[in-house]
């Protein structure tokens, strides 16, 4: 949106991206941060899924993300195929303060690898970095070293460090499955844009010309038009409700 100036006719294409992960790990907050650069402490749980869009400008092209933010509760899992259908990218989110959420994330990765469209770009994202201790937060090395004490340590309740999933562990897993990997904080905004940029870069050029990308550009323009019409009200051409 920022610079979709007509002066700069970069090729633009849409990418369908889906967010998956356990309940309350911050999927919606990540999207909110990315789309609106905003953060809400108590966000309503997503019912079914929420849909948002945001553009991401790369040097050579513009990617328009169509983001499907899904519900996290276990029983909603059976709805997920509906949302990751045709997705070109997926953000699998876990909470670095909850080891169980990484397990769930791994389940999702497995599910995507088997069921989603082949060639889907998957990023593993550990959210709530702001809850990790500041000492460990300086750089990645520290973060690696600090949790050598290991996640499942109930007695280390002294510090403010709520981290229970060591960066190493998750990183190793991500490498093994060749996923993109980030630790983020939707609250502070750390790494959020980076995740999406990395995904945008990782989407192969060819897949942009895929089924969804066909005529993507013209398509897009048409949608934009439609939206303009919308805001102008239904006045232009409402033939009293006979769509059929």
């Amino acid at each position, binding site marked *: 949106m920022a610079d979709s100036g007509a002066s700069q006719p970069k090729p633009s294409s849409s990418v369908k991206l889906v967010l998956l992960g356990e309940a309350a790990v911050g999927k919606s907050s990540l999207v909110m941060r990315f789309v609106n650069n905003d953060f809400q402490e108590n966000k309503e749980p997503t019912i*079914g899924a929420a*849909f948002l869009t945001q553009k991401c400008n790369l040097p050579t092209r513009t990617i328009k993300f169509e983001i499907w933010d899904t519900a996290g509760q276990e029983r909603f899992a059976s709805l997920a195929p*509906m949302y990751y259908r*045709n997705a070109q990218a997926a953000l699998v989110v876990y909470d670095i303060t909850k080891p169980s959420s990484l397990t769930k994330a791994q389940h999702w990765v497995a599910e995507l690898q088997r069921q989603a469209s082949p060639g889907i770009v998957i990023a593993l994202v550990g959210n709530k970095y702001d809850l990790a201790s500041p000492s460990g937060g300086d750089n990645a090395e520290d973060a690696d070293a600090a949790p050598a004490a290991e996640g499942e340590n109930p007695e280390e309740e002294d510090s403010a460090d709520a981290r229970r999933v060591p960066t190493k562990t998750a990183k190793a897993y991500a490498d093994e499955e060749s996923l993109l990997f980030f630790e983020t904080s939707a609250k502070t905004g750390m790494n959020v844009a980076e995740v999406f940029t990395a995904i945008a870069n990782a989407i192969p050029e060819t897949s942009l010309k895929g089924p969804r990308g066909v005529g993507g550009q013209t*398509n897009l323009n048409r949608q934009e038009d439609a939206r303009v019409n919308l805001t102008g009200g239904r006045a232009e051409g409402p033939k009293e409700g006979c*769509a059929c």
Partner: protein
Amino acid sequence: MFNLTNLVQKAQQLIEPTLSIAGPTSSERDRRPSKATLFRHQFRLPESQSPLQEITAELTLSPHHTTRGTPGDVTSPEKERGQGNHYVGKLHLSEQYLCFSTQGSSFLNSASLSSSSSFTGQTHGAGPAGNGFTLPLCAIRRVERLHSQSYMFALAITTWNGLADSKSKNAVPSGQKLTVQLAGSRIQCERFCDGLKKGLREGVREVENLRAVVMQCYSEYLLSEDGDDKSHGDGGKKTREHPDTGLGMVFKYPGNARKLRDATKIRLWREYLRENGRSATLIRQPTFHKLIRVGLPNRLRGEIWELTSGAFFLRLQNPKLYTETLAKYSGRESLAIDEIEKDLNRSLPEYPGFQSEEGIGRLRRVLTAYSWTNADVGYCQAMNIVVAALLMYVRPWLTLILSNTSRYQSETQAFFLLSILCDRLLPGYYSTTMYGTLLDQRVFESLVEKTMPILWDHLVKYDVQLSVVSLPWFLSLYINSMPLIFAFRVLDVFFLEGPKVLFQIGLAILRINGEELLDATDDGTFISVLKSYFARLDESAHPKSENPKLRAVTRFQELMVVAFKEFAGITQNTISEQRAKHKDLVLANIESFAKRTSIRNLGPESKRLSVNDLSFLYDRFFATVYAREQRALIMQQEADRKAKAGKAKATEIVTGFAGSSVEQGRVGLGPSDTQMDYDGFREFLAGIAKWAVTDSPSPPPESNGTQSPHSYFGGSTRTRPPMSQWGSGPEPADHDFMKRLFRRWDTDMTDALTLQNVVTGFAQVKGTKDIMSNISYFFELYDDDGDGRVDREGILRISEALLFLSRRGLGDTASPSPSLTDLHAGSPERGNRDEQFLSSVSAFIRRCFEYADPDHPSNQGNRDVDEVKDDLDNFAIGADDEDDLIDFGSEPNTPVANSPSQSKHHTKTPLSPVTSTTNPLTPTQSNSSDKDRHLKAKEANLALDPNKPLHITLPTFRMVILADEILEQFFEIGFSASFKLADAPLPSSASSSSNLTTFSNAGKQVAANAAVGMAGVVGGAGAGVVPPGKGLRGMLDNIVSDGMRVAAEVRRRMDEAQKEMDREAKSGQGRERDEDDEEEERGEVGAKDADLLEGAETADVDTRSGSTPDLLGAPQEGTEVKTTRNRSASDASRRVLEFER
């Protein structure tokens, strides 16, 4: 363990609310909801009610200015005849309710289905439609019979209207009067009146209860004010306190009260309630429906929701349920509670009420209480939003009027509304698989396709998935899609008219936005079109219109009109039909997803099994569990029916429950932690391992009795009710080994296995190729106290288990490969290899005792008992081996096929002829070897002096096993191969002993006369019975003699077969099959005669190997078998060599 009653309840919960989601069975009859269900749905009555009496009647209400003037009333054309309003309809009586409806639906058993389900009103049977009333009998103060000229029977009913007033002031309650004329024969009328009298008498007890519930209704407060006081109660420092009408009372209701014309609405309602009764005694007249369509006033909203949805009756029935539930589970933890906690701060967070502790507390308590009362549903996201919305209006009275009610009771109303929502109005929406939600999405799609084909084609063309848009609408009842004030308007109608409202609104939304949606070519645009529509619902629908009246119509009003006028044809019946149509597919989808996920999530252990195997285990596991559940249910019902045959309940069971009971037992319906008890485990195993099928199916009850001493296994299965508890599958055996396996796999000590337990268990058994770990696994099974020792008893049990496992023959893989045979055929030290499994086992026992370590002579006390017990066990072993023989004999499907023995394994008919011939202790053909056997046995017995307690340790056990190649192979592969998973045919489908096909084929040539001979052998073979005094020696004798018997027979038949083969003498192919023959043969060869036979046997092998004809037509698994066997055998030999070094 299954809790049966719980299960039945669950089934009913599941079935009853799903008026429309009927069972997956194909039979049309089963899909019908029972009359009682229809009745309850029509009047929104609690589950305890059933239609007892009904009669055609005319209701006369005294005239009032508001109701009389209602124009255009279609449903009561008789109105204005004489005085007051007249309605013709049906009067229904249930245990605790008297209901009247202008709809002529009948719920008598004799009534046709169409007459009880063809509804015409707005609700189409999903709610209190038409005009009339639903009176709790306790709300009736008096019934008088009037003298009437035109009707035979006329009743004047006086209600306890204004009951609450009567106590606070001492005026007589205003009490409205209604007149009902009954139209029917004198007898009918009298019968009805008798029923009514009886009900009224019962009802008297409930009056105080009713008073307590009614006291807390806002309507009572509203009407207790002065009629002129238009300020709806805020100025009221009256004798009564203002009842709490939800969080909105403190934190403001959403929307602008003036804009919503709240005051006007309250005034209209006050008038209506004054004339037509309030809360429990409310009478529905046409105005009632209209008042609801225009939207309820804030303060009355909760009460009317409660009344129309039927939650009021639930509360009346069980006013303390909420508090009691909270108290009972106070302090308890659950997954649902964790999930609830996560969302408490995220439920309508922008509403001030939910930024307060009070609001959060209410939300927590209501959700928690519900999660306990319906643990199957627990908590589902979206419930938090719905409940939060309810709590704005629904009264939790902060200021308590009644001293005996605790503070927590305040949310009772919201709690019961939630129950009604989840259990009846939105069946399956919030279940663990959310099948109701998914199903209704399918239904919605099909309705769109039907009503808006152009839009539908467009969606299909651009691959836009409608449900991504519409799912949240249904799941949260539009609450988080539309602005709250409009969502509540939808809810007002929804609670009265039922789930079809959601569909009507959804269709109307699409219809109104049709033009723009046709321009949308992807999900995203689709969603944003609708989003912006919702955001502008309050704007004018026709902003450019000249007509100011038209301009004043908001988009929301337009939506309501389109929904209820244009889509008036969408009825509850439409939806029921569509649900029934799509149900199977939706469930199948969910199930395949659930299966995929759960298999993937079984953990690292499961990786040791192949995907096919896992899939097989999954199917088999759930098939077993559900089949058992269902059988239990049906049996339960049969019992019930017998118990109260002839009563009205029985017909209910027939028409309703029995049919829909098939509903139970689908993964898609959402039980998440299904478990299998021991009996289930037996049945499960019986489908997987042939040794787990019983040898003596318990006889049908008629022929019960002391049939045969044969019944070691059969006898332990319980006496069965008429229907087999095993269904149509093979009846499972019950053996100590299975018990041990069950205990071993039941790692959580819950006395039940989960799928996870089973898979992990199988991974240990089948997943490992390491003979050492298999051996120790087996050893640990028998090491009861875990001290690394197995005592004499244990040793015998192990051998017994080995015999048990092998009694149907071992897996193909248990025989050595041809190459190995060639290799070692001549080597004398490999002679043992030729011993048959049985002899191996007896050798095993002998060795065990030989190498056993002496125990401390302390625990000898119960030896004798053990011995007696051993004898019994021992006897069973004898029986097993006879079965083996029978198997061999009956295998050929040539003339022998009708031999009585065959029925034993292939059908479930009792086998009296066989058993009778089996039992006598006639001498066997192997007489010659008898002496030998006894010699050996005695020798072995030297080690068996019961005065010397002893034990073996794992190393000893391992050594003994490894010393014997047959056993070694058994532990290497045979054991795990005896479980047939995905890649192998099930024993039930093929013959019960597939590895014996060699024999069956050999037997083909032997043909009928062999079978005749067979019978003789079988007859003579029952040598297993030993007088108790002989103890362990007898036991060993039996083992040995059994071995002999088998060996003799096998040998005889082998020889015959051999002759045949030689004659045919094709060369080269099917060698491995042939090896099987040899193996079996060698295997069966007389236990202690091995030495004698050895020479001949090996010679035999030599002559035959390589030149035997293919009798089998080369089954394809042949090669596979060959390779594995190859490896194992060579492995085995290596180990043996090591050992011997």
